[in-house]
């Protein structure tokens, strides 16, 4: 049995097991969990479930769009699918998955015994369950699920049925969960690093999460404001966004996107951190420009606060506004480019092998950059006027969120999975998962650039027939992509969780001469024991190794 699900794993335990006689077993272990590894596992399993549910919704969308004409669903239901696909993927899959990684890896990487606030950690996770239930079950409420797009623009939201209120409540719960989780991460990183691990010696994953946590604390309350005002407009007689009462629908967009833009960086920065750890490991060479990488990440985070209205170029803002937001948005390309150059420079004159984590990391760099370029093109306001609300935007954000965030998550899973479970995944199956996903992803989303350029609007249940061929191609790709994730779960993840596979060494990614992965997580056995670093370790000068 794997150590993820069962306390009695392989490897050296010594007295660490005896420490928790009296620790709960069975369902209590999970419901009352305060251990960062268990909570990390809970988040990851939750996120994967939501990924599958969001994926089914996507396949419903692509099934309908396979051919022009309505075949399966009426447009009202179709709008529910597009809305819930977005909400579930953003708030249910991507964000909790990264929090799961944070929980598993941050204490291990900084040499801490657990997160600073273990019980609040538990609460942060369990809040997600009623939230997810409300989101998913909203399809069965009168009127169906919310159908206003994941961006929930007013005043369309004022026309939605009771599921809109359930959705608002769910988002409040998830926001609270994120804020508490971020507080936990910041306090843990700032206070609980092992002696000798200064901030500038911290692993990049910890850095990117530290910055992401500040972003979350800054913007989740703003989203809470926007959805609360929507709620009061709907039921309590206010007119924040309702023009009949003197309100301003555009103000909703400003408030939402002030949250929404940093939100997308919240979803990508931890992935940058994962890639920044994997590439050096498999190039057998230290990350190029560590300090630059930290500053670039911080710049991206700060800049992310001043670009929000690039989502609003078509609303009719004055010239000065359009120019400012165009310039600011284009500026973000600079630190992002710096990061990509640094990764390539890490690879340059390294000694690379391409096990599955490295495949995903290189795939990430390649495909995320394409998403970055389309983002730069969208930043040009005159061009954005043509592409706003078309499939070009859909292509752009799926490139950065799927080929970016999701590929980053898979890279991290293959990289750290052996440490979590004590079991190596099958390299062949990992490759099948990677190549199948990469090819299917591109078949699905690359044609969408053309659809958008040619003028196909988004959130459309039916379309003019000239768009038929590329839609058909995208739908085929989508089904293959979905199948590949099922394959991953059944043939890669599940065996690892069950302990089926070759035993993972303590340092699966380090050569005999010591070249390869560095960091305190590799100082503990595979699988990592239930309690690690119960006393702060003594570190070498680099803060990468424990010295006796």
């Amino acid at each position, binding site marked *: 049995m794997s150590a993820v699900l069962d306390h009695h794993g392989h490897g050296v335990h010594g007295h660490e097991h005896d420490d928790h006689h009296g620790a709960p077993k069975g369902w209590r272990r999970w419901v009352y969990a305060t251990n960062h590894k268990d909570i990390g596992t809970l988040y990851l399993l939750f996120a994967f479930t939501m990924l599958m549910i969001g994926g089914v919704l996507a396949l419903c969308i692509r099934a309908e769009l396979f051919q022009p004409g309505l075949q399966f669903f009426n447009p009202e239901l179709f709008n529910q699918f597009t809305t819930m696909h977005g909400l579930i993927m953003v708030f249910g899959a991507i964000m909790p998955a990264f929090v799961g990684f944070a929980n598993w890896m941050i204490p291990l990487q900084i040499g801490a015994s657990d997160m600073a606030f273990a019980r609040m950690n538990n609460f942060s996770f369990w809040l997600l369950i009623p939230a997810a239930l409300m989101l998913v079950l909203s399809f069965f409420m009168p009127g169906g699920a919310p159908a206003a797009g994941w961006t929930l623009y007013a005043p369309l939201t004022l026309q939605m049925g009771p599921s809109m209120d359930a959705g608002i409540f769910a988002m409040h719960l998830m926001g609270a969960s994120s804020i508490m989780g971020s507080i936990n991460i910041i306090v843990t990183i700032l206070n609980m690093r092992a002696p000798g691990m200064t901030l500038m010696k911290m692993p990049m994953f910890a850095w990117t999460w530290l910055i992401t946590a500040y972003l979350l604390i800054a913007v989740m309350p703003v989203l809470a404001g926007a959805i609360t005002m929507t709620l009061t407009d709907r039921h309590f007689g206010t007119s924040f966004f309702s023009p009949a009462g003197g309100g301003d629908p555009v103000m909703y967009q400003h408030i939402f996107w002030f949250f929404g833009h940093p939100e997308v960086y919240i979803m990508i920065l931890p992935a940058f951190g994962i890639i920044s750890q994997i590439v050096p490991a498999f190039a057998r060479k230290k990350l190029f420009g560590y300090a630059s990488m930290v500053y670039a990440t911080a710049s991206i985070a700060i800049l992310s606060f001043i670009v929000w209205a690039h989502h609003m170029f078509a609303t009719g803002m004055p010239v000065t506004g359009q120019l400012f937001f165009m310039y600011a948005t284009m500026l973000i390309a600079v630190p992002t480019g710096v990061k990509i150059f640094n990764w390539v420079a890490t690879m340059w*004159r390294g000694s690379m092998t391409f096990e599955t984590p490295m495949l995903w990391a290189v795939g990430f760099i390649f495909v995320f950059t394409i998403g970055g370029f389309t983002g730069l*093109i969208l930043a040009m306001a005159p061009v954005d006027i043509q592409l706003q609300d078309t499939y070009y935007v859909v292509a752009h954000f799926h490139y950065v969120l799927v080929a970016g965030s999701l590929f980053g998550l898979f890279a991290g899973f293959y990289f750290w999975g052996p440490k979590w479970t004590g079991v190596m995944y099958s390299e062949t199956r990992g490759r099948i998962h990677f190549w199948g996903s990469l090819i299917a992803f591109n078949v699905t989303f690359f044609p969408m650039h053309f659809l958008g350029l040619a003028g196909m609007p988004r959130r459309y249940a039916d379309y003019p*027939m000239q768009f038929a061929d590329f839609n058909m191609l995208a739908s085929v790709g989508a089904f293959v992509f979905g199948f590949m994730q099922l394959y991953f779960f059944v043939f890669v993840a599940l065996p690892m969780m069950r302990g089926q596979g070759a035993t993972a060494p303590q340092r699966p990614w380090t050569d005999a001469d010591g070249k390869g992965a560095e960091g305190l997580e590799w100082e503990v056995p595979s699988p990592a024991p239930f309690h690690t670093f119960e006393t702060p370790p003594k570190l070498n000068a680099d803060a990468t190794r424990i010295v006796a």
Partner: protein
Amino acid sequence: MKMMNFTEVGRRLGQLGIVLGATLATRMAMAVNDLPGGPAVNELDLQTPATKIATEQQWLHNFMLVICMVIFLAVFGVMFYSIIKHRKSKGAVPANFHESVKVEIAWTVAPFIIVIFMALPATKVVVAMKDTTNSDLTIKATGYQWKWGYDYIKGEGEGIGFLSALDTAQREMSDAGKPEGDNYLLKVDHPLVVPVGKKVRLITTANDVIHSWAMPAFGVKQDAIPGFVRDTWFRAERTGDFYGQCSELCGKEHAYMPIHVKVVSAADYSAWVDVEKKKLAALADDPSKVWKLEELMARGEKVYGATCVACHKGDGKGGGPIKPLDGSAVVLDADKLKQVAVVLNGQNNGAMPSWKQLSDTEIAAVITYTKNSWSNKTGQAVQPAEVVAARK
């Protein structure tokens, strides 16, 4: 599972790709052609421009594409070279360098300069797109759930106003899953007509939720926001028919409120204005007129076919969340004002929209029609004057 090495997996995938491609290719013989002024089949680029602004936008996009392509090839050229050469299996030994302030500065400053270089031509176009002054004609486009209303506010044609909705036959094709036609989902009952070569200032607003008026061939997109007026402009450089679609999610018929602009010569435009003004005069129904039941039925059938059939269907049975009118308690009610109230004010938070923008005669006629069609046989007639009174 049989252990396959890289080459075998690659070969299998290639075979699968060929099979898939062949299948798709045979399906791709769908009977549709390019629509001039609208989408082209399997188009890879923006639609053919019909205005200078759209031409500039296309130029900008190509400019960006070329620069991005060059950077892409440079960066990934280096990366793939490294992937091939700097492999452990090729005996590469890892170097020791891991930072260089000079290099970091260089690859911060260079992209910064490139970004400024990109922003300069873009700025010109942004400023030009925003300049709505000195227009020859001003038209207001109002977004409704789910159609457009056009009012000619200033210039030749002032006073003309009409609604423009998707052709109902095409809407039914969509429901039936049997799409057909090069202009599928783009045909409207009453296109917007403008003269060629004149600067048209387009004011956008909305009646209910946010919509967006888009015309790719003109390079125009402007949100139509309730409670707000925004403006944009275009000058069509050639005559022809041009098509766009609503570009902001506005509810269930978001995909079904297209935009069709007919650009005609100055002479044709003047002729059209004349005809429209005469039509308007004729249509101006006198709301105090008393109509016979058969006259109301005939008129009501027209209104129903133009306005109600998409949701309530030709047999009055609705479907899904849409309530049937055939056998409906509200329609059969002896108190006519009940149904008048529903048509004037809408119901269920806009799920049934308000139709107060129709004329009193149209509302009276269509209600009379529903009360005496299908299995409904109330014998009731609603006169326009009753609708006038109900509006108060």
